[in-house]
């Protein structure tokens, strides 16, 4: 759901940039407090992994494909929604500047959708679900599904405000496609969390503590 430059008029794109910048600022404050030499490998691997897997579009039928976005994954593994904002901002900068995947003027909207909304929805729904189900895979799957689906709806509303999509067909199509793409998001998020925790069992406490907080 990388929005290209042409899809949002400049004044609206500027508003999304402004909102995104507030969250980028907050994520930098989070990172300054939380980051240490020890955390660098996880940050680097998340950035590289999310960048790479975002290029791996899988078919979801209906003439459409989708890939992992990674907001929920980053937020859960880093124990904060600001972790997702931090990682997704870095990934979106590389994608936009180097590859033209997502516009420059619309990068604010893309950071807002995938980093901020994806990160917050993913993190807080994971917390709530962990309390209710006590199951990491169930909680992470649903949280990641929501972290794909809700940003897609936000994107559809932005496209309506921009005059690019009509409201109802835009919401219906974005919702339908991302409801299916969300299954990819959920499955890969669960597998990736399992993989990272098996390599670094000390992260188990971040994931669980995050859920208990």
């Amino acid at each position, binding site marked *: 759901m*990388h929005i290209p*430059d042409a899809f949002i008029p400049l004044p609206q794109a500027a508003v999304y940039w402004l909102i995104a910048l507030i969250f980028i600022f907050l994520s930098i404050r989070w990172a300054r407090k939380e980051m240490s030499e020890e955390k660098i490998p996880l940050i*680097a691997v998340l950035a590289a*992994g999310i960048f790479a897997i975002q290029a791996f*579009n899988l078919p979801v039928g209906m*003439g459409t494909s989708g890939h992992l976005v990674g907001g929920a994954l980053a937020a859960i593994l880093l124990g904060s929604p600001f972790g997702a904002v931090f990682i997704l901002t870095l990934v979106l900068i590389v994608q936009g500047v180097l590859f033209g995947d997502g516009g420059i003027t619309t990068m604010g909207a893309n950071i807002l959708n995938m980093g901020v909304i994806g990160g917050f929805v993913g993190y807080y729904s994971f917390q709530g679900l962990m309390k209710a189900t006590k199951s990491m895979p169930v909680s992470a799957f649903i949280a990641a599904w929501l972290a794909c689906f809700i940003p897609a709806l936000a994107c559809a509303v932005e*496209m309506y405000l921009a005059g690019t999509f009509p409201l109802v067909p835009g919401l219906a*199509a974005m919702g339908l496609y991302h409801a299916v793409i969300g299954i990819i998001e959920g499955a890969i998020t669960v597998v990736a969390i399992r993989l990272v925790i098996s390599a670094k069992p000390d992260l188990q406490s971040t994931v669980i503590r995050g859920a208990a907080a």
Partner: protein
Amino acid sequence: MMDNRTFLIAGIIIALAVGGLAVFLASSNPDGLESTALMVQGQKTLTGDTPSDAEIQEPESAVSYNPPLPDYTLEGYGKSGDLLAMLVGTILAVLVAIGAVKLLMMVRKTDRQD
């Protein structure tokens, strides 16, 4: 328990492998946003296939930015160009991430010395 250096190297290798496989295996169908754009422009139905000649009509953009490696390709180099683009992107993602964290840690250090 994997030490930090092994974790970093293993993680980067996995990312490179995923990106490399993506060059050959990724679906060329439009993503959810593009597919929605094609649908509202009447070029495909909601649940139907995407015709091979479907192309998104973009409104005139106020800015036109020309990225160095548009669409993850190096023009004229085929699959090897795509692989190189993914390699460059993945390594850059690692460097940007490490750079950002190191920079923040440096700033924090100077702050504390004040």
